[in-house]
């Protein structure tokens, strides 16, 4: 596995030069998974052909093909399509479904020589922040197996954190990459909306979600992002990307940069808020200037977020009726269509059901004015407010999650408490801005993450600031049993 702080770039170089092979790397990933995943449950399904595929990449390398990432072992969240592997979204609804195509992000990594290790556990249809809302049971945090790994891309974070692969593709709708990255001591990156194609990402809330990498270092995350990013004719919402690599200039530091600390996200004074304060001081020592800023709309952001995401989920998940794919619920007896659909949709789990009920309500004719349209208004105001702040400062800083990883089962019964957990993360999604969670020390043996949010299409600048913060945090701590 890649050395901490060292990078996937170096590993890829070794494969290119023949000092290592993809096959060895795939075998190592398989071995580590065998050793750790029985307990941690990062994966819903494993790629049984991973080693075989790695050998095929070795053949391409030997044939002189110039590949972007030969031998990179990548796990993929189970809501992102990999041709010929299941895509269940951790739902009984999609039991047995195998998409016939690769998501664009997967396709680009595959073309670069990446080897896919398996499909990772998640909250059902990415609705949740703990990975407890999975039809396959919860994943466990490698730092403390009794605690949640965060979510909804919890399995992705566990697979990387426990050394079962080099990097993972997650999806971030309201913090679902950053939150588990923070809980598992990783870097989690949510790109500018439209930077990475969503083609092949099974939609939950399509106007705000993005595929993003989880990796051990900022450079690793940038390396994976760089391969995936850019316009895709199959996703009309993709935007172009700047010339050059995301890694160019990533070591440029933060001297002269202005950092805004979001006051509303520093309340509470727990370990995450303290870590954010220390992170700000560290950036100042590196030559940045910090000031406190206010994001007034933040207080309505979570309500707007749940209203919009539920409305979009209502239509995005409507297609799961068991007629065309997934679990086949068509009875042999005669039946009336609507009665059948209601019954078929009984396969959704509790959290998905809760949001679908909300999603049927908020855009309905009698209520859209009071809910959905108001939420869209909040979203516009929030985006404008963040835009104004990012004219004054270069990056916005806050804790990633207001709390430390908690015990499995501790909070699952209180949706309102769970909802407040993404207070700090949803603003980036609602406003389309890029944001990243960077590990910044530990508290009581548990990792803490600090979030930076940047300008629209300012992903390279944001990664540079994240790299500086990572450097200031000192050598990364690793969970027990993980690679050195």
């Amino acid at each position, binding site marked *: 596995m890649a050395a901490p702080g060292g990078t996937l770039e170096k590993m890829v170089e070794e494969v290119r030069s023949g000092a290592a092979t993809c096959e060895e790397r795939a075998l190592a990933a398989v071995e580590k998974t065998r050793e750790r995943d029985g307990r941690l449950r990062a994966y819903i399904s494993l790629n049984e052909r991973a080693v075989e595929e790695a050998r095929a990449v070795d053949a391409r390398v030997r044939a002189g093909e110039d590949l972007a990432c030969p031998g990179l072992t990548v796990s993929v969240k189970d809501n992102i399509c990999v041709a010929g592997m299941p895509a269940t979204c951790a739902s009984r609804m999609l039991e047995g479904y195998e998409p016939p195509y690769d998501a664009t992000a997967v396709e680009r990594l595959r073309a670069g020589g990446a080897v896919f290790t398996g499909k990772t556990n998640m909250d059902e249809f990415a609705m949740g922040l703990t990975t407890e809302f999975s039809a396959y049971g919860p994943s466990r945090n490698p730092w403390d197996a009794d605690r949640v790994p965060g979510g909804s891309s919890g399995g992705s974070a566990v697979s990387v954190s426990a050394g079962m692969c080099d990097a993972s593709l997650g999806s971030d709708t309201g913090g679902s990459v950053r939150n588990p990255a923070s809980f598992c001591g990783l870097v989690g990156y949510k790109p500018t909306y439209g930077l990475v194609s969503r*083609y092949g*990402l099974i939609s939950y809330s399509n106007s705000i979600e993005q595929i993003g990498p989880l990796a051990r270092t900022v450079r690793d995350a940038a390396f994976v992002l760089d391969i995936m990013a850019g316009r895709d004719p199959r996703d*009309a919402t993709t935007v172009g990307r700047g010339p050059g690599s995301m890694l160019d200039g990533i070591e440029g530091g933060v001297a002269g940069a202005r950092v805004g600390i979001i006051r509303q996200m520093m309340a509470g004074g727990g370990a995450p808020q303290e870590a954010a304060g220390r992170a700000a001081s560290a950036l100042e020592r590196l030559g940045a200037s910090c000031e406190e800023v206010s994001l007034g709309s933040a207080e309505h952001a979570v309500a707007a977020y749940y209203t919009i995401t539920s409305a*979009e989920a*209502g*239509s995005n998940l409507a297609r799961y009726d068991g007629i065309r794919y997934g679990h086949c619920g068509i009875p042999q007896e*005669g039946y009336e*269509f609507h009665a059948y659909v209601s019954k078929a949709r009984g396969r959704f789990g509790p959290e998905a059901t809760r949001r679908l009920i909300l999603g049927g309500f908020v855009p309905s004719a009698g209520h859209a004015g009071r809910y959905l349209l108001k939420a869209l208004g909040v979203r516009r105001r929030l985006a404008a407010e963040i835009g104004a702040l990012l004219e004054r400062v270069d990056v916005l800083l806050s804790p990633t999650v207001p709390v430390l990883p908690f015990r499995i089962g501790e909070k699952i019964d209180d949706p309102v408490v769970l909802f407040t957990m993404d207070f700090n993360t949803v603003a980036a999604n609602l406003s389309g801005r890029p944001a990243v969670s960077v590990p910044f020390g530990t508290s009581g043996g548990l990792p803490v993450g600090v979030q930076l949010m940047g300008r629209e299409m300012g992903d390279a600048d944001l990664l540079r600031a994240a790299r500086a913060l990572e450097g200031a945090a000192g050598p990364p701590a690793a969970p027990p049993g993980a690679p050195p």
Partner: protein
Amino acid sequence: MSPGPAAAIGLEVHCQLTGLKSKLFCPCRADYRGMAPNTNVCPVCVGLPGTLPRPNRRAVEKALQVAAALGCSTPPRLAFFRKCYFYPDLPKNFQITQLDAYGPSSAGSGGRVRSAGREVGVRRVQLEEDPGRLVYEGGRMSRGALADYNRAGVPLVEIVTEPDFAEPGEARRFLAMLAGLLRSLGSDPSLEGALRADGNVSVGGGSRVEVKNVASFHDLEKALRYEITRQRSMAARGIPVAPETRHWDEARRVTAPSRGKEEDMDYRYHPEGDIPQIEVGRDELAALAAAMPEAPPAKRERYESAAGVSPQVAEVLSSDAYCSALFDEASAGADPGDAREMANLITTDLMGLVDTAEKRKASKLTAPRIAELARAVRSGAVTRASARGALREMVRAGGGLAGTAAGRGGAVAGEEEVARAVESVMRDEPGAAAAARADPKAVNYIVGRVMAATGGRADPGTAVRLVREGLARGA
């Protein structure tokens, strides 16, 4: 039509853009006809998880051209919305369509166009995806249905008119005009299911009733007619008309209430985030309008002003792409008087002879022939009455005027020849003559026999006069 309070009829028309290469949001074919079920599909149009719509710019352009031809205004930005309802022909259980509820963002709205001799308001023109098709094996009462998604995602333009038609015939003529417009834009509205219309009817300002499930324009006219009669007779008896959706029952020739609760449906419209708003520049709109083949309203204008064709004839002619093409070719460089005669021949005689797509395809009539016939009618060499017979022969066998009975018979029959024919008919059919003396309506029968005896070359006016004189003499 039974008398009673005035009727107000509106139309909701769905036109497939069959001339495009691909569907609205994926590369599958726009014309799915003749393909085995579920072979014209891809992950996008069957709505597989993770797929996204890729808007077809050509479809957007066609919709904008339809909007422009119907006098609609187009906003600077077009948007798409999701219309949510569960139905097995809808792969995503929502339809991507347009909506003006949050400000105009459809391809067109607020249009006015002349049709059927009146100004008709066009409420909106919008672009949307066609659902798939359900096939009920063994009819609607069968226990299951088969779904075919070949049609799912085909670009569909929806046109909604204001309730500005007073007569079912006017609605039918509007549809004929639309068919002509679509043809001029490269689509083929005669293909099965390519042009579908629902109507709505109210009488005397009462409740509006939607009339659906109508297979053809012909049936639509019948359904509207039935519905107007039904509502008028209810009004006459003081029974209130319920606002509802009724389906046309083709077998029983009545409209019947639908069992579904379509009026109560809440479609939970919300923005389609997968499709960014589409900018429509004013320059682009102008270029599209300029690039558009002449649309029926413009054609009608040209026929009236250049050839002096009457407004009624110009409208009928311009609404029918086949006939207007024939007229344009025949009348090119012609004397305006001859051109008017050609227009009359085409609209009063030819349209009845070739009233289906099959008959038109089989017709051997060519433009030079119709020009020749019009000149002969104007010079008096052929009567209007015999011209119809000549047209029939030209359609059937091709060839020129000389090959027809009217042509062979030469000029209009002289008065003497007609008088001889009158005499011989009255002699051969004394019973008919007696009947005609008792009932003036029966005169027409004898006139018909006289026309036949002269091979259609008698002037009808002369024939009527001579028959009347003959009857009076014989009395």
